[in-house]
């Protein structure tokens, strides 16, 4: 029962962070939202009893891709501009 509630909360968090990553204008906030998305996805993998995949997702998704996004944003523009 408590696991089901955590499961549903994680899924709601996944949808919310994915929506915010598309909608926000601050690209640094978008990168952080994608990091949170990857962290929640690794939590979801752990709930579904795949801890191996969860560690890989936490390391690659939440760690390395967020770092690469931050590097790319610092070398370009931080704000999304209208064409």
């Amino acid at each position, binding site marked *: 029962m408590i696991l089901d509630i955590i499961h549903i909360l994680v899924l709601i968090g996944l949808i919310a962070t994915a929506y915010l990553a598309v909608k926000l204008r601050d690209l640094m906030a978008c990168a952080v939202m994608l990091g949170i998305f990857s962290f929640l996805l690794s939590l979801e993998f752990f709930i579904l009893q795949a801890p191996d995949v969860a560690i890989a997702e936490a*390391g690659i998704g939440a760690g390395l891709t967020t770092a690469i996004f931050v590097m790319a944003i610092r070398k370009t523009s931080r704000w999304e501009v209208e064409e």
Partner: protein
Amino acid sequence: MMSKIVRTQANFLYPFILIFGFYIVAHGHLTPGGGFQGGAVIATGIALVIVAYGYDRIKSWIKKSTLTATESIGLLCFILTAFIGIGTSFFYNFLANSGLLFGDRVSYGVNPGYLNTAGTLPIMNLAVGIEVLGGLGAILMYMMSYGKEVDK
């Protein structure tokens, strides 16, 4: 280079991330995770320091050539460990139950898992961990080395 808060946090967290990554690599045959996952966690620590300090200060601490050499050394260790058992077959586990390094017998029944078992598997986990650490670190360093930082 980021603010002093970020740099202090990076200094504090860096050794713990490294230790956790090497723990995952060393316990690859007992617990979830293995060479790839542990190497990715260690590369996350490198990424933290690179983001906190910026490429201009990092490039004297971590060399790109060292990281690519580390990647090659890991792959060579893996393939050499596989070739040592070629007398029986490729990837033959010649160390298992031999009493040498990582050669203890596993007792039957429920047990917490012993580190000194499983033969060549821990050695191959270490090789893959070193290789992934070098490869992902080299990706980060090359990603950081092009272009200029824009002041906003």
